[in-house]
């Protein structure tokens, strides 16, 4: 196999996710972008695991998935409660915690 293609795809997906986190205001979309970055990482991990014949990369990918699932639960709950109180899902609106 040629890992170059996988890694390129992974980097591409990560960059899209990163740009999405930075430029989008809607919290749900930002959230999706974070998931995209996580999965880009998973792809890279699995690729390297396959290449080196080492299972730990595969295991790490599973861990990332578990963490991502848990994160979705907590994150969505936060977004829901913010939306309920402020009628807005924009991340820029929730900027009270500052200097």
């Amino acid at each position, binding site marked *: 196999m040629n890992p170059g293609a996988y890694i390129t795809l992974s980097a591409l997906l990560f960059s899209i996710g990163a740009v999405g986190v930075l430029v989008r205001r809607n919290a749900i979309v*930002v959230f999706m972008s974070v998931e995209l970055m996580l999965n880009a990482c998973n792809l890279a991990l699995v690729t390297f695991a396959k290449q080196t014949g080492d299972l730990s990369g595969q295991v790490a990918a599973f861990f990332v998935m578990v963490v991502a699932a848990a994160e979705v639960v907590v994150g969505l709950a936060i977004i829901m409660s913010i939306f309920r109180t402020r009628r807005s899902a924009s*991340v820029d609106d929730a900027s009270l915690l*500052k200097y």
Partner: protein
Amino acid sequence: MTPLISPWLPAEAGGGVPVLPVEAAGTFWWLWLIIALPALGATLLLLGGRLTNPWGHLLGTAMSAGSFGVALVMFVALLGRSEEERQVRQQLWTWLDVGDYTVDMSLLFDPLSAVFVLLITGVGTLIHIYSIGYMAHDERRGRFFAYLNLFVVAMLVLVLADDYLAVFLGWEGVGLASYLLIGFWAHKQSAAVAAKKAFVVNRVGDVGMSLAVMTMVATFSTSSFVGVSAGMPEASSGTSTALGLLLLLAACGKSAQVPLQSWLLDAMEGPTPVSALIHAATMVTAGVYLIVRSNYVYAETPVAQVAVMAVGLVTLLFGAVIGCAKDDIKKALAGSTMSQIGYMTLAAGIGPAGYAFAIFHLLTHGFFKANMFLGAGSVMHAMDDDVDMRHYGALSRAMPITFLTFAAGYLAIIGFPGFAGFWSKDKIIEAAFAEGWVFGVGALLGAGVTAFYMTRVMLMTFISKKRWRSGVHPHESPSVMTVPLVVLGALSAVGGVLLLGGWITGWLEPVTGPEGEHELFVSPFILTSLVTLVVLAGVVVAWLVFGRGELAGTAPQRVSWVTRAARNDLYGDAFNEAVFMRPGQHLVRGLVYLDDTIIDGVVNGVAALVGGSSGQVRRAQTGFVRSYALTMLGGALVAVLATLAVTLA
């Protein structure tokens, strides 16, 4: 016992008998009891607090009397020994043991400390007895006796120790007791201030003492009398002179000699028995003891000897002049004390020819001055605690016993032929003349002035017309106060017997060395007559000024500049204020300013810088999640690039 090599006298100082301290055995095993008894009294009375008030005075007096009893037994035992064995050393325990520096807590009972122990416990006991009457109405009487016992303990440590560091312990102890007793009536502002002043001025002298001990440790690796006396002949002249001058500074502080004299007159704020015991008979003579004890130091340093003589001469005239102008009876006596200790210091400075006479005068002075202070206390007791002699007069009829005993002290101090002071002072003047014209004439002049001011005190208090304030009914004091007066009065009269057959000089010879010859330009008889004539002149002048006619009930204000200066203690306080206190104050103000501006400025500046910059950096926390995310991304990028740069380079 380790063999002690104790050349008490440097060989070239004239031979003498090198005496080795012998271990205390037999009767002398009880030596520690002399200190232990008053120490027990002080501890019980201090711990017992107010509970001891009903019987504390009896305990304190009993402990002091017991100590005197033991001392008397020891003295007789010492008398029974041959001259070579008259130095008894009792090792109690090792106090310090650091490297090759060891300080033993041990007691040295030799002819010099023996007479001191007798003076301290003997006069001390009489004053304890007197205080029972004098302090009868004081609600803190138990505490007063606790302090008196504490003083006796510290003074005994001072004279019995055989190591300068242990002497220093007693030295500080008497300073503490003096402070506590001067300020005993601390509710009076003046007493509290006087106590503090005495303490502070004494600290200056103590600096000299501690530096002297340090010099000894640095030079001889020991501070014991034996070690220092053995090492002195090999010490460099600079070291000897430094030691001599430092010990002189210490003596000046404790003995109220010029230039550290200013505290003694204010110390009269304490209860009168305290003035008699501490500020006349014993503690203030500790400086003379120190100089006489350190005779092996002064034998090596003529410079320091001259300094000692100069200090003594200046102080004896200084104190006498002050004594002439004071209307406060206790302050007049305090000026006289300074002056008499000046005589002792002068004699101690003369060297082997004067040591024995310094101690002799110290003893007789202890008798007659304690006697006169207690007499003054008796008079104050009768006059409702009024100390102004201008309110006295004609008390000889009202208080005959006080008058007669005071008169004995008076005759002793002016040197009336036959009385104690006549013998002791005459010997000092004689030795001073042999030493040099200046010292002799100064001492002779001092004797005349002494006669003048003491006659003045006598006339104003007991003889002249009554000037009593209304409501004052003088009466003789109770016998618990007059008995000590009578004993001390008798001692003032007959104290001169110590000189019979040169006993005192012979007795002290193992410590101070042989008296040595001195040449006089005239026969001693003519000199004695001359002294007596000068004294007589002083008495006559005083009688002409104060004995005839009326005396003003208040101090006259239009007086000569001499009187004004003497009333102000010859501007001793003003001098200290102008030379030490004000510049010190300015220095402290400058340092405080430096501290406030520069030191605090740097510290506060750093804090302000950190605070200000963090205030700016804080602005980075905008609260926008996306800017945080960008920062993280940037950080991660930097980290990755740095890793790459490191791996690829």
